[in-house]
């Protein structure tokens, strides 16, 4: 069974069908790319998948479970985590605390235990610290654990967002333009990190990206979106050589 199975997903804003009949099937462990020209509706698809918008039509299944129309929080608990095109970190919190906020539902203890500093507080906090540091190490951020998130350089902020999403222990990771604003060296490093995450955490990853080098370098399959509709779907090399796709990108 596919990890993510989306059928006939649509949303209408006023008279505009921003996403129209979107469908995709992503196998577990796949590195999948969602590409398309600006305004094609890629981020809207992410917002539909994560419950930020409620779809007008369609069904979303995660690992067999129907998550259509659920809230962002429920969907995260069901196993989808994401990053944002315009970075959304907890800017005034430390890098470590950003990741620990991601661990919120993983290591629970009651508010009262936290206020009274009961043993469950110390035990859970210790585990959270260890797990968070482990994640930060994966992303090369362990040296900056005490920095305020907003003080990190841009590239590292993007990585921290991925680390925070990973902390929620997802089945499916959605990355919205992870390489935006990065220089070629940073992008190359990011590609390695994404591969590492997929391999070591057995993760399924769906990413939106404009950087064709990154897309062709790591995505195994692609969906091309144009004017809210699926233009083409399949293996990366085939999709990228499809004349329709080239037209959509370069114009007539």
């Amino acid at each position, binding site marked *: 069974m596919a990890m993510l199975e989306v059928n006939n997903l649509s949303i209408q804003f006023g008279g505009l069908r921003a996403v129209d009949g979107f469908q995709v099937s992503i196998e577990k462990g796949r590195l999948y790319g969602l590409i398309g020209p600006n305004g094609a509706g890629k*981020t809207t698809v992410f*917002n539909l998948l994560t419950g*930020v918008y409620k779809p007008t039509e369609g069904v979303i299944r995660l690992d067999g479970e129907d998550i259509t129309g659920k809230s962002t929080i429920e969907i995260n608990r069901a196993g989808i985590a994401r990053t*944002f095109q315009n970075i959304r970190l907890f*800017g005034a919190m430390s890098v470590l605390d950003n990741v620990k906020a991601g661990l919120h539902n993983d290591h629970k203890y009651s508010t009262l235990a936290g206020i009274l500093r009961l043993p469950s507080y110390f035990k859970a906090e210790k585990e959270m610290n260890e797990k968070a540091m482990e994640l930060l190490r994966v992303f090369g951020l362990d040296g900056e654990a005490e920095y305020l998130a907003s003080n990190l350089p841009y590239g590292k902020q993007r990585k921290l967002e991925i680390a925070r999403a990973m902390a929620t222990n997802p089945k499916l990771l959605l990355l919205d333009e992870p390489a935006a604003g990065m220089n070629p060296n940073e992008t190359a490093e990011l590609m390695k990190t994404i591969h590492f995450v997929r391999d070591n955490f057995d993760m399924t990853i769906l990413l939106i990206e404009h950087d064709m080098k990154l897309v062709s370098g790591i995505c195994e399959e692609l969906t091309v979106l144009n004017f809210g509709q699926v233009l083409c779907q399949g293996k990366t090399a085939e999709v990228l050589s499809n004349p329709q796709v080239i037209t959509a990108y370069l114009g007539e």
Partner: protein
Amino acid sequence: MSFISYLKDGISLGSIYAIIALGYTMVYGIAKMLNFAHGDVIMVGAFVILAAITKAGLSPLLSIILAVVLCTVLGITIEMVAYRPLRKASSNLAVLITAIGVSYLLQNVALLVFGADAKSFVTVINVPTLVLFDGQLTIKGITIVTIAACIIIMCGLTLFVNKTKPGHAMKAVSEDRDAAQLMGVNVNSTISLTFAIGSGLAAIAGLLLCSAYPTLTPYTGAMPGIKAFVAAVFGGIGSIPGAMIGGILLGVIEIFGKAYISSQVADAIVFAVLIIVLLVKPTGLFGKNVQEKV
């Protein structure tokens, strides 16, 4: 007949709320901030008129013009000095707290200049009282003027926003500030203009408020200001007709509450309206549903 008489009082009070609410709703719609000091600009306007007539001996018309001009300048200055530097602040709490500071500042400057004791406001508007139904219903001149002023201002403002270039700029900035800037709209001057209009109207509201309820203290503007904000929320924040309808409804509710329930809890009723509106229809009667962009 007492019902009609209360209704008339309610519409009159509501018209004043409506004029104040226009200032709130425009600033909120365009600058996306709650200008807490707006109510206190009303008080400043009323004090200027009072001082101009009693101390400087100016004619009522000149005094009103002076008050409108001074309040307009005051509004623009407040925006430039206190609010503009915070427009891109990371927290929108910052500008809200600053606005409270400005409100406090205006009250306390007035306290130092004019003292804490209540001044009785002079008669500025001389329109004869209308007597109807053999004296069963009397409508004071000020009531007629207030309602007329409210209608004129509302129509004028609607025309201004819909038919003029600066009006279109206001609409553009309220829709999407960044996009408007990219399209060549001068966002700073548009916001300044909004504050100018709102504050000028506040001077008029001050005149009408103090003519209807002729006592003036440094705190005169605060409570009507807050109630007018309730009216703006009621009507749907950002909407000009909403401010008008919300204002009048709130005025009627307040007067009826005073007349038929208890004058001591009339304010509680007004504020309960706010909480109920926010529970049932947070966007108000005419408000648009705005979703944050992700």
